[in-house]
């Protein structure tokens, strides 16, 4: 250990802390770190591969003699599978494997009842239709309201009720909250609702499985290469070392792709039984039906405040459904701001719909939409500027600085002092909302750095790049340590034969692998330094790696020349260690967004004109990539705010819009001008000072847009998505 000083914070707000740097690891970077490559714009190292179509996704893998698998799915939301007659499917030429789930009970539409593997997709399609299934249809409920109703049929036979209270650490104190309400000047009670959003990644779920000499290779579209390997090994009862997952490139996941699902098992099983490589990638309808979704919410909020803007009590009762799972339908509300007292009751409601899954910042966008709406309603009630109200009740030093940046960018002073006061049918408005996220990393991850005697550098890890740019970030960090450029570094990701990495969840991949990559490259550098000093003299510790050169020896060398002095290729393993975390400047990641919208009050149409997104992610490794992440979060948040909505038919219990025409996702013409501002904070955390950015930028968007809509029209839409229908209702036109 050696004692060092570390400068934390951001411009105008810095502090110095003492840190203990473990031996054999690089010094952490503070605000004063002099960096050549980190913090500059770099295009994605795999960008050309992707835009030219050469990047290989699971869809592009076609092992010789590959066949196709698919499951037959129940059209009923709740039914007993009395009989599955496979005989006609089996008799069809080209059908190689079948299975049926006779005797089971399906609990949601789209649940599998049989499966087939066949030579071609066409034969497969025909075969599935030849399977005769006899169902005994049982009563179902597909909405929270129906599931909560008196006398509602139980969703799951083994449970006699549909509504489950979830208790958590942050549930607060009811008496204190009531007392706070009593001392307040205004108390508002409002109900906010949010819809179900399906993940709708461009690349659907699924995999290609091939057995060779008793070993299974799974080309999976997954966020968790290692969890796929491990859970498949367990499911098939084979040793882990006989299973390998490959995910070289990935077309999105958003939280719905961890571990294996039934179709993956079926695919591997069919491959085993037929001795042929098998592909099962869901079609779009299946993806909507069973891929995953963000639970909905009904949030009954009772908030109070003093006339001077001091927030007093917040009481939130929420109901939501994660389908057949009695977990995870809670909301992040209240939060962010300081209240005197808070209280929460969270109810998870079972419905006969597919299970909810983690979805980009689970619980947050829905909670923040209601929370930020309530803040605006309080501001209006007490006659205070909504931004002032937030500043008064926010203690996060980074967000307080971000408010200024965002307000200036959007021109906060342009907003309607009196909401809805714009002239003419096209009315403009401006609103804002905040967000927050966690600093995290995953234990047990390691990045290998290999430098050979010709100077080629490879960083490798078995986790995949979900599309956020992890590959590029590792290249930038490796390049920084070794005095190279990102394109000089080969980054190999997505093969579980390489060192372990995290599953991409909680915005942790880059912030786990980044410090590990730096650590690995730094260790390699020490070995090269020693080799140069041995051969050329000078002090190994003084050798510097800059712009492709090694300087400080009696004569400068190129990086390649220096590597040529190695006895053999160097291989190091860099790690992310929880124990080596450094003190944090702020405990949480902060962000805020400002929206400007234009609403046609005669049609209810909302056009978002501009979003300003100010987002902290610790140290910004590649601002270009960071802006791209923020843009992505904003786009998905906008789509959630205005369009996306899973529609179930209450009568039959089936999904009505399981396609990409009727399940509406924002497209190019819905896009506003997006001003993404990565806000660099030297935050300690780890040797790089980086944090995650995948989830936080989608947290505030819907709240900011909803508040802007209110500022434009003077009426509040408390339900997502904000459709023309709801705008016209809020305006009292219908």
């Amino acid at each position: 250990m050696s004692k060092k000083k570390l400068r934390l914070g951001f411009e105008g707000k810095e502090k110095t802390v003492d840190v203990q740097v473990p031996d054999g690891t690089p010094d952490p970077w503070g605000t004063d770190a002099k960096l050549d490559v980190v913090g500059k714009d770099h295009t994605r190292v795999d960008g050309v591969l992707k835009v030219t179509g050469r990047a290989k996704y699971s869809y592009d893998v076609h092992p010789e003699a590959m066949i196709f698998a698919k499951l037959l799915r129940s059209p009923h939301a709740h039914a007993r599978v009395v009989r599955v007659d496979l005989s006609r499917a089996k008799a069809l030429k080209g059908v190689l494997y079948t299975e049926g789930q006779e005797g089971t009970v399906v609990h949601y539409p789209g649940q599998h009842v049989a499966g087939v593997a066949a030579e071609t997709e066409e034969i497969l399609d025909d075969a599935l239709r030849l399977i005769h299934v006899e169902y005994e249809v049982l009563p179902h409920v597909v909405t929270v309201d129906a599931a909560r109703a008196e006398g509602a049929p139980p969703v799951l036979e083994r449970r006699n009720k549909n509504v489950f209270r979830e208790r958590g650490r942050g549930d607060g104190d009811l008496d204190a909250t009531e007392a706070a309400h009593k001392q307040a000047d205004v108390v508002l009670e409002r109900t906010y609702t949010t819809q179900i959003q399906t993940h709708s990644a461009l690349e659907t779920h699924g995999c290609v499985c091939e057995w060779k000499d008793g070993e299974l290779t799974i080309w999976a579209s997954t966020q968790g290469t290692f969890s796929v390997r491990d859970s498949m090994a367990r499911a098939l009862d084979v040793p882990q070392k006989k299973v390998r997952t490959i995910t070289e490139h990935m077309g999105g996941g958003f939280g719905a792709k961890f571990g294996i699902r039934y179709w993956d098992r079926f695919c591997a099983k069919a491959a085993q039984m037929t001795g042929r490589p098998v592909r099962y990638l869901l079609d779009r309808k299946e993806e909507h039906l069973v891929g995953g979704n963000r639970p909905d919410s009904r949030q009954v909020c009772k908030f109070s405040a003093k006339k001077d803007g001091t927030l007093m009590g917040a009481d939130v009762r929420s109901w939501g459904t994660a389908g057949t799972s009695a977990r995870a339908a809670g909301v992040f509300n209240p939060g962010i701001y300081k209240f005197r007292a808070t209280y929460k009751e969270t109810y998870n409601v079972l419905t006969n719909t597919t299970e909810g899954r983690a979805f980009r910042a689970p619980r947050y966008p829905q909670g923040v939409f209601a929370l930020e709406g309530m803040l605006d309603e309080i501001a209006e009630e007490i006659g205070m500027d909504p931004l002032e109200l937030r500043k008064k009740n926010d203690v996060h030093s980074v967000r307080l600085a971000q408010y200024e940046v965002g307000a200036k960018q959007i021109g906060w002073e342009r907003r309607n002092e009196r909401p809805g006061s714009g002239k003419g049918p096209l009315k403009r408005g401006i609103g804002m909302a905040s967000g927050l996220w966690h600093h995290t990393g995953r234990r047990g991850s390691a990045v290998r750095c290999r430098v050979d005697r010709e100077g080629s550098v490879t960083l490798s890890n078995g986790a995949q790049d979900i599309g956020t740019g992890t590959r590029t970030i590792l290249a930038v960090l490796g390049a920084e340590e070794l005095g190279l450029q990102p394109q000089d570094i080969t980054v190999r990701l997505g093969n579980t034969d390489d060192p372990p990495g995290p599953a991409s969840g909680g915005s942790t991949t880059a912030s786990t692998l980044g410090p590990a990559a730096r650590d690995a490259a730094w260790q390699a550098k020490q070995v090269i330094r020693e080799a140069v000093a041995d051969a050329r003299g000078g002090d190994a510790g003084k050798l510097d790696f800059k712009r492709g050169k090694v300087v400080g020896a009696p004569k400068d060398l190129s990086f390649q020349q220096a590597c040529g002095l190695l006895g053999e290729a160097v291989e190091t393993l860099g790690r992310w260690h929880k124990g080596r975390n450094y003190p944090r400047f702020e405990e949480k990641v902060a962000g805020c967004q400002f929206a400007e919208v234009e609403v046609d009050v005669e049609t209810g149409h909302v056009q978002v004109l501009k979003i300003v997104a100010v987002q902290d992610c610790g140290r910004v490794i590649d601002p270009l990539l960071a802006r791209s992440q923020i843009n992505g979060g904003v786009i998905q948040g906008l789509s959630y705010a205005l369009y996306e909505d899973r529609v179930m038919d209450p009568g039959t219990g089936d999904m009505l819009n399981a396609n990409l025409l009727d399940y509406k996702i924002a497209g190019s013409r819905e896009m506003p001008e997006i001003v993404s501002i990565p806000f660099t904070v030297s935050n300690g955390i780890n040797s790089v000072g980086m944090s995650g950015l995948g989830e936080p930028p989608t947290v505030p968007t819907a709240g900011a847009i909803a508040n802007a809509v209110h500022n434009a029209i003077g009426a509040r839409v408390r339900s997502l998505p904000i459709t023309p229908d709801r705008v016209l209702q809020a305006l009292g036109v219908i």
Partner: protein
Amino acid sequence: MKQFSYLTADSFEAASKALTDSGNAVVKAAGTDLLDLLKERIVEPDEVVNLLRVEQASGTGVVSALATLADVAADTAIAEDYPALHKSAAVAATPAVRNFATVGGNLCQHTRCWYFRNESFPCFKRGSAICPPLEKGGQNRYNAVFSHERCASAHPSNLAPALIALGAKVRCVHPEGGRTLSVEELYREPRNGRIGDTVLRKGELIRSVHLEPSALTRNSTYLEFRERHSFDFALVSVAAAVRLEGSKVAEARIVLGAVAPIPYRAKQAEQALTGKALNAETAQAAAEAALAGAQPLSQNAYKVPIAKTLIRRALMELSS
């Protein structure tokens, strides 16, 4: 989709004959509608007859049934003489769809009703007695507000309301003899067990659309309202054509799309306008008259004010 045989016809006559002779063959132009129906097994033909290679009709005032929406949108003569047609084609669908989708296919396309397009639901058009959007709990936000006694489908075509407002005709081909129909006559109320909305007989094909320029057609426009601009169908559309004599309306034709199972001619609005000056007040009165008989379902009342707004805006565009 079910497997089928595929025949590329070299003339309308040959195509029509093949379709008439066969048991359940269907015709395909660009296939942007048909392919979805095949994939969802809403139609399961044994044979598909491809029309894309036949010789196309041409001439002034003649639009081939195989012209693409992009062709129509790019035609400057159409833009001048028939602004409503130009606009209806220019804003339809997406650039990619417009580059491929044909005029004939657009007129004969099928409703987007999500119950209709999902074989696991009952549907009046597909032979059931039930129309789920009309049932309790039916999800009918995009369905019809007029003429939905038995089927609540909304007609999806952009071109149809425009062509009706312009008084266009279609020339049809059939082995038993061709005929000419006004576009208005082309459509009829949904029939149980018939998925299409036209009066075309088995094997009958549209060869071309015919238009005659006039003061009415030149003073025409088309407006639509979509939830999502990039990629969507209209929630409500309106085509309007007005012939002014002096400051008075001598003739008006107002047709709404997506509010009824077939294009909806707003005759009350036309009457309300005829003989009057065209101004904000009369435009509003016409809009009110047009929607006076609307019977919104449980979830689509919002279509009514939107339709009124579009009618008023369209008429005001034509007032000068």
